[in-house]
């Protein structure tokens, strides 16, 4: 298993030690995770499929389940240029051109037998659908339930329209969580162990602290981290391995490395010319190309919204062993795409200030209407109401047919060129006598 998902090599003026320790450890964790599924015939533990947004990892883990996230499998396929084949297969099954690429990649992959270059994806014993922020989740899990006949638990999470959830929302979620617990007791023949759940939650909390420390490093000038391209790799433990000691330890290593970077002056780019906020899902199929478009201009993403799809930990939320069910309910409500547009706008405005971003790059994707519908209005609001230079580009996260490199590059070049020009003009005006 040497061929695993890993961060692309960073070239050009970057110290070779940048990303080294954390990246190596991340690679190892990914390898171990998929490696554990290698033996499909005799899975040691039952497998639950889950979705990243509002996931219930802790509860499933407390019952000894292994968790598989088809979204993450799909994105790994896309990075490794295996998504198109799966997508085309799904289209031959009847999934239309405009169905989400995650769904098509996954259902195509499943129909082809679940084999990837990073391991065999096991079949589910249970499908847990957290309907949190994405309607397609519901449709996707319906399709999986139909093809596997595995039981589906629908965890219905209300959309957040106010900053604080209503009491009725929490009560609704807690009631559903207990129903899940009863279902798991029935399926595993094990009694629910509250102490075990609390122990898992404590590990989650420790990982969350570490993850937030990493994210907040983007507030430094220059930023020692790449909050979009680098974070994407470090999202794996917080989303997939949360609740394990390994996840929590991982962020200790990451943060140690980030501190060393600051100490040694080892930054993502030799010169941080532009600090940008990136909103939207990355084009995984052309990840490296896209990153190059930033690097070329000395642009470092110091904060990004995409790493918050698994939870807005940096805005204060933590899993809490003293309020296990309530805090899980709050977690599920708190996924980034489960926030209404007024709340999303506020988060972005706060980020721009907090991280001193010079500009915002919005990457809209064809697949995800939840994330994307309204990003044009967001662009308008940022430019006209907030005075933040903003660029909006579109492609897809899974389907390489929608990534037009020449067009995207042209827009990025023009955008940074104009930022540079304006900065030069401002500097000239500032330097002018009188």
């Amino acid at each position: 298993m040497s061929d695993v998902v890993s961060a692309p090599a960073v070239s050009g003026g970057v110290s070779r030690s940048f990303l080294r320790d954390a990246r190596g450890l991340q690679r190892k964790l990914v390898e171990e995770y998929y490696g554990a599924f290698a033996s499909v015939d005799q899975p040691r533990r039952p497998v639950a499929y889950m979705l990243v947004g509002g996931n219930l990892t802790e509860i499933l883990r407390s019952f000894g389940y292994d968790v598989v996230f088809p979204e993450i499998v799909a994105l790994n396929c896309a990075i490794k240029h295996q998504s198109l084949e799966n997508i085309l297969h799904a289209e031959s099954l009847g999934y239309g051109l405009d169905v989400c690429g995650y769904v098509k990649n996954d259902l195509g992959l499943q129909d082809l037998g679940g084999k990837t270059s990073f391991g065999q994806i096991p079949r589910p014993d249970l499908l847990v659908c957290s309907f949190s922020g994405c309607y397609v989740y519901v449709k996707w899990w319906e399709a999986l339930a139909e093809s596997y006949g595995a039981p589906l638990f629908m965890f219905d999470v209300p959309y957040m329209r106010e900053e604080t959830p209503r009491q009725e929302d929490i009560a609704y979620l807690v009631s559903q969580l207990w129903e899940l617990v009863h279902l798991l007791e029935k399926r595993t023949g094990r009694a629910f162990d509250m102490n075990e759940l609390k122990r898992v939650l404590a590990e989650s909390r420790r990982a969350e602290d570490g993850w937030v420390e990493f994210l907040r490093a983007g507030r430094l000038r220059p930023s020692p981290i790449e909050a979009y391209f680098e974070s994407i790799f470090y999202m794996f433990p917080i989303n997939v391995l949360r609740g394990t000691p390994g996840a929590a330890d991982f962020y200790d290593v990451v943060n140690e490395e980030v501190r060393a970077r600051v100490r040694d002056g080892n930054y993502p780019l030799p010169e941080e010319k532009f600090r940008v906020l990136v909103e939207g899902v990355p084009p995984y199929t052309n990840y490296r190309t896209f990153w190059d478009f930033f690097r070329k201009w000395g642009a470092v993403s110091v904060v990004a919204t995409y790493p918050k799809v698994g939870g807005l930990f940096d805005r204060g939320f933590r899993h809490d062993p003293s309020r296990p069910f309530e805090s899980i309910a709050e977690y599920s409500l708190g996924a980034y795409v489960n926030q209404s547009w007024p709340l999303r706008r506020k988060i972005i405005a706060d980020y721009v200030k907090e991280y001193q971003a010079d500009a915002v790059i919005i990457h809209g994707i064809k697949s995800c209407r939840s994330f994307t519908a309204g990003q044009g209005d967001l662009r308008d609001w940022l430019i006209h109401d907030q005075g933040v230079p903003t660029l909006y580009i579109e492609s897809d996260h899974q389907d390489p047919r929608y990534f037009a490199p020449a067009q995207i590059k042209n827009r990025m070049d023009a955008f940074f060129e104009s930022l540079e020009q304006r900065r030069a003009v401002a500097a000239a005006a500032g330097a002018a006598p009188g």
Partner: protein
Amino acid sequence: MTAVVAGVDIGSTTAKCVVLGEDSRILGKSLSVVGVDIVKDAERALEAALADAHLSRPEVSFITGTGYGRYKVYFGQLVVTEISCHARGANFLFPGTRLVVDIGGQDTKAIRIDDKGEVVDFAMNDKCAAGTGRFLDVCANALGYDVGEIGPLSLQARRAVKVTSTCTVFAESEVTSYVSRGKDPKDILAGLHASIANRTLSLMQRVGVEPEVTFTGGVSQNEGMVHALHRRLGVPVNVSPLSQYLGALGAALHGRERLSGGAA
């Protein structure tokens, strides 16, 4: 400093070059079709413009490349995107310009600029080539016209038909279907122009419509399109016979600034 500068704009279909004298007078220009060898095409565009200016290569102190093929202008000293170049070029020709609309072969741009010709904000066609020059090209072809003829013809329309397809490929079948239903080609052409004007307005609204509006790019030479845009916008639109050269002109101007140690 007696410097002659040149700008070379390698677009998707044509290569343009402008040679500027020190008083920013246009000494020479060229326009040629781009073929399979872009590097050579860029060379040729420069040579042709120099011939037009009666100058030789060593007399040019600075060359800037722009357009899709800008990285193929190997002999240049600077590359700038056509967005910055159109902004600078429009400001040069019409100093009051605040919004530049460029309809090219592969894409359409709306660029908001300030009084110095700096880009404040821009928007380009998303997703696909809907509403670009290629759209007119393909439809002209389907109707059996040369792309140069369709603008004037569209102005003779009595009642424009509604063209709803924004996809270039599908617009073609829409056009064919109108023909088979016996619609007047002039009315179809008027409909096509109105459809592009509408898409263009949508782009312009993204950056904010503010007079003066300067219309550039190959399609700006199409009077039917100028008319359709004017009608849709309700404000006059600046058009110059030099519009096609605006990218190259802007590139040359950027080069001049760089040479004089200015903002570029």
